[in-house]
């Protein structure tokens, strides 16, 4: 048992290949010694998985299975969910069991998994997460795809991200296109701080400028080829119906788009009309109901055409 304890890698960010070799050994030892009964001992990955899955289920936590999968994968230090099943015979030492349990208890209080783990996978990045900064959603990964296409077509050099939150969009763009630079803006101090930290973590801090400012108060002296944003767009009346995970822990300012969900979007449109270069483009993630609303709004107010994708 002592050997087992020593062999288990302690850092969650342990180099995966290396840790696999250790894990392998443990699995083999396991097969010969402890698992003769065929039952899981309480410190085994498989047992932890089962107990907590049931507990989550009983407490009607959303995604019980995924939640425990992610927590265990995090504690095993692997990005792969399948490893949780692969190493289900592995015995964890006390510290790790305690870690798993403390994380699970947090999850029981409906804290989103990304906050529980303090990290979130977005495209090729692992971003640090801390409440109440908005957690990037998988749909936004597709927005990045669209913007990357535009960058390649036009060979752009400098982009602006509004309402950057944790910096997911800006940092992904910077990481995947090493020739460009970016400016990120958010009104929340916590968000700007997190973006900065994530930029440092990804080694991208030299190519990003982070500004904390209200949208309306930012004095715009520069022009950009591309402006991209995932602004708050939830209708105020829908806020109440959101999952408890979101309502309790996420900054509602990052979600609330006013009566028609367009409050911030309108500000962005106005700002874009000043800050976009000739033939520049604005990319927004909006609600399914918004495209028609936006079209009406734009034809009403602006005469020049502004392309609104998504």
């Amino acid at each position, binding site marked *: 048992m002592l050997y087992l304890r020593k062999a288990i890698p302690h850092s969650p960010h342990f180099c995966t290949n290396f840790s696999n070799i250790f894990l392998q050994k443990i699995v083999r030892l396991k*097969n010969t010694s402890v698992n003769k009964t*065929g039952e899981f001992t309480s410190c085994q990955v498989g047992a932890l998985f089962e107990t907590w899955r049931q507990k989550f289920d009983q407490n009607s936590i959303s*995604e019980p299975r*995924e939640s425990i999968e992610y927590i265990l994968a995090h504690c095993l230090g692997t990005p792969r*969910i399948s490893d949780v099943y692969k190493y289900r015979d592995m015995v964890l030492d006390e510290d790790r069991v305690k870690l798993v349990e403390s994380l699970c208890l947090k999850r029981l209080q409906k804290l989103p998994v990304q906050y529980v783990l303090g990290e979130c*996978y977005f495209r090729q990045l692992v971003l640090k997460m801390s409440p109440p900064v908005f957690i990037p959603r998988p*749909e936004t990964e597709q927005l990045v795809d669209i913007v990357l296409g535009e960058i390649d077509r036009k060979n752009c050099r400098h982009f602006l991200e509004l309402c950057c939150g944790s910096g997911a969009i800006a940092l992904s763009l910077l990481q995947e296109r090493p020739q460009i630079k970016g400016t990120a803006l958010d009104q929340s101090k916590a968000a700007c701080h997190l973006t900065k930290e994530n930029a440092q973590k990804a080694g991208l801090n030299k190519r990003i400028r982070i500004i904390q400012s209200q949208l309306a108060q930012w004095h715009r002296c520069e022009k950009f080829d591309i402006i991209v944003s995932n602004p708050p767009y939830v209708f105020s009346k829908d806020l109440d119906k959101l999952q408890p995970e979101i309502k309790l822990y996420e900054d509602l300012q990052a979600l609330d788009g006013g009566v028609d969900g367009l409050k911030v979007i309108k500000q962005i449109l106005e700002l874009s009309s000043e800050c976009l270069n000739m033939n520049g483009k604005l990319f927004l993630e909006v609600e399914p109901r918004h495209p028609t609303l936006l079209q009406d709004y734009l034809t009403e107010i602006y005469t020049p055409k502004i392309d609104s994708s998504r």
Partner: protein
Amino acid sequence: MYLFSKTLLRRVLLVRKNYVFYTTSKYDLDLAIKGVSLRNYIKRLEHEYEGLLKLNNYTANSRFHQLQPLINALNERKDAVENIQNLSELLNEKDDDIRKLAEEEKLTFESRIKSIDEKLLEAILPSDKEDECNSIVLEVNAGVGGQEAMLFANELFEMYCNFAEHQGWETQIADYSPVDIGGIRHASALINGPQVFQFFKHEAGVHRVQRIPTTEKAGRIHTSTVSVVALPQPTEIEVNIDNKDLKIETKRASGAGGQHVNTTESAVRVTHLPTGFSVECQVDRSQVKNRQIALAKLRALIYQRDLEEQIARNENMRKNQVRSNFRNEKIRTYNFPQDRITDHRLQGCNVHNLKGFLQGNDALGSLIKKLDQQYKIETLLNLCRCYFGFFGSFISDNMQESGADVTTDQSLTFADITSPSQLQEVTLDQDNTFSSEYFPSKEKRKIIILEAKTNLNAK
């Protein structure tokens, strides 16, 4: 075709009666596998090599690189034989000391020839095109036998993952669908490593397990099956997927998404619209990774479909071609009560220590090596057979022109070919492996080239 082979057969048999065996010295190249002489086959390869040398950019030809080691070994051998012949004078020398020295010398050369012959045998064994393939998709599916099959599927999958890790190959699990009792319905992995396909192609097929399941109360032995599929993973150039043809869905495309929902789920479903293939993946915490994995799998599926189409088109030609066997044949039995593994492709090959075997260590590796060796020898024999059977007259004419020796050992192999279908099957093998210059009739050649072209276009 049947008639043709019959008349040929008669001719060769006739020739055999009258022909005088013609051997120059005992150091002539005389390799044989299972009593089949490879001499003329090697000559053919040499001939092909010379033909390749005439081409302008022969160094770029992959066949050239395939043949190079063989030719090197042959040249080495020629040198050794020459050296021995040069010694013959010294061997007749009256001086004892010199003669002794010469004899010693001769012995070293003879042993060198022996080792070269072994090398030659290695070099001559044919390799499939896919053997070069450095990445594959391995799929394990539970078959007949319900839960028990699922449990065993999991054990097999773990065995392969361990084996890959043991070999130092990079494994990425692409799909893993566990059931509550601990088994899996299906799972797949992308494995990267030098010539992995050469190993895993022999694992494809139906694996049978016989044991008392943990779920069985009456203590009866059950037989269940698990099927394993190994697909070579094509490069992006080999299978080019147009982004327009893809429908990429994050799983909860229905209902509200975006800021309204927070989920951990990163599952992706990719559908290839022209073929209707759909692949799901949710093994990684990152959605982009999942998408990459799904795409790799999709590409392998499309590649496989292209191959199968090609095979189907020639179905009547190669009824018992090896590749089509890869799928549904029962290849191995794992018998737990007797602690024994029997591979049905190797005669009398039983491996014991099942538990150890399932850990995916050297036991599996050595079994696969044996299978590979046997497979290669069989393919080679097939090649020789058809080659000297079918092209016997053609070659001998050719060789007589060039003044080469022709012995009649090949008639032996020719007689082995009994059914006309076998002959046809072989012609295709030839096409896969050799330049078409050796095909007997021009028309046949044209047809095959045409087919090859259409295949390319279809891709």
